[in-house]
């Protein structure tokens, strides 16, 4: 067990080192998110001039939601893992894993966790810098239980995000180009994952359907727990559905890997 753990610990350390090389890229991405935040600020600021609350929340609570999303995105979101996996398959770099007692999913996941620690730490820098301006807009509920619930929700969200990226990467066994699929799913994830707007603002019927989709648990669910947009009942039910999607996506990842390898031709030595 310890031997297994130390194997992936090495992958984790490797991931930390290689991602620290890209620290400027992550920092630049962090600055882009500030532009996104500014756009959200302008749009929602204009909306709230007409009404003091929308969907039961005021401007500060809505801005808090968008800031939380940015932090979550850098701590648990998949960035270009799908593309990296696709490259490894296309260039034959996965061949080395076929001969070693290493599980490719766990290896990539260890690297993913390391990458998110680096990017998560880096996004805090621009956010701290702008905190004098946005500080008064940050209003989090004071319930301790929300923070405790947020931890497993974030962990499962990270697995869902990574697994979806992993599955898209696996498509490289069948298709030459996966970029189209990736951006296609990004559009769906942006809308149904709550990045464009808080999902609870959607009509009730659509919100109820969205709750059963995996996208709901990628971003919105942990963000809504932390910012108090959903109550205890929905959280309990949400945990069950989130766990269900974790299992489904882990199985799909494994299935695509096994099926894909059957089509894979390892060329060269």
């Amino acid at each position, binding site marked *: 067990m310890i031997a297994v753990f130390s194997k992936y610990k090495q992958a984790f350390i490797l991931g930390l080192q290689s991602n620290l090389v890209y620290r400027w890229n992550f920092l*630049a*991405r962090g600055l882009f998110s500030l532009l996104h935040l500014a756009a959200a600020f302008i749009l929602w600021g*204009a909306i709230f001039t007409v009404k003091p609350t929308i969907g039961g929340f005021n401007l500060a609570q809505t801005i808090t939601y968008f800031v939380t999303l940015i932090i979550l995105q850098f701590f648990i979101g998949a960035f270009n893992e799908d593309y990296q996996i696709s490259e490894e398959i296309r260039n034959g770099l996965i061949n080395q894993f076929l001969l070693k007692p290493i599980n490719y999913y766990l290896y990539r996941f260890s690297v993913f966790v390391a990458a998110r620690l680096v990017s998560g730490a880096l996004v805090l820098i621009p956010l701290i810098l702008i905190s004098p301006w946005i500080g008064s807009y940050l209003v989090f509920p004071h319930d301790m239980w929300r923070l405790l619930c947020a931890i497993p929700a974030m962990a499962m969200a990270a697995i869902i995000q990574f697994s979806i990226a992993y599955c898209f990467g696996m498509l490289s066994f069948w298709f030459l*180009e996966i970029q*189209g699929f990736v951006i*296609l799913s990004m559009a*769906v994830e*942006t809308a149904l994952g709550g990045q464009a707007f808080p999902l609870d*603002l959607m009509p009730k019927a659509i919100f109820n359907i969205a709750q059963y989709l995996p996208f709901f648990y990628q971003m919105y669910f942990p963000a809504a727990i932390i910012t108090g947009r959903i109550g205890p009942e929905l959280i309990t039910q949400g945990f069950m559905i989130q766990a269900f999607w974790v299992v489904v996506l882990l199985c799909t990842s494994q299935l695509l890997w096994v099926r894909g390898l059957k089509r894979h031709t390892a060329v060269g030595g």
Partner: protein
Amino acid sequence: MNYFKIWLAGARYSLVRTMMFRGDFFIWSLVELLWMGVNLLLVAVIYQHTPSIAGWTQYQMVMLVGTGMLVQRLLMGFFWTNLFELGRNVRSGAFDFFLSQPGHPLFMASTRKLDPDGLANSFVALGVVIFAANKLNLHPSVLDMIGYTLVIFAGLAIHYSILVLTMSLSFWLTSTSGIEGTYFALTEFSRLPKGAFHGLARLVFVWILPLVVVSNTPAEILFSGFKLSWALGLVGIAIIWLSVAIFVFNRGLKRYASASS
């Protein structure tokens, strides 16, 4: 005339290529369609809760989003792939290829490929604008429509210039991967009504970077009729931006040192 012939040859080549990779064309058309859907969904959801944003009603906002998308789809269709590859080509030295062609390198590098999926979706964006105009019960005159077309193309020139300026940085910087993200981050502002911007944001996004004006002016022409001063203003801004972009590109070109020995 000569340039038009060169462009036509490139366009023909791009169409033949698209016919070869029909699956790709289908997927990328769907990608752009879905992204437009996301923006319209945002409008639909917000107006469930409020009657107006900065004085704009729901269908006025749909028209704004549609107009913004139209300019962006035209940019995608005509220039995006070319300019996106510009950065990579400068770094790899493949840019040499454009220097040996019969035309200004900027023209050659920005018009080599067409993206038929972007162009196909510009019709969808136009459809969104027409749908919104119908809902608003607008009956634009011929002059309004000519004015709208004129400012759309002026807007396209401004977007093109901003993208050329961004990608020209690759002449000075060694790695520009991800720099195109700047453009996408900025276009988010073009889908917002001008009245929503105040203070510093108004100065930066309305006056310094004319992204907001680019989408707001054409939409306003359709609501409140063609005004020569608006159209000429936007054309003037477009000429200034285009001149700056060409100047910076030419300066960058002087620094280009190829990559091979």
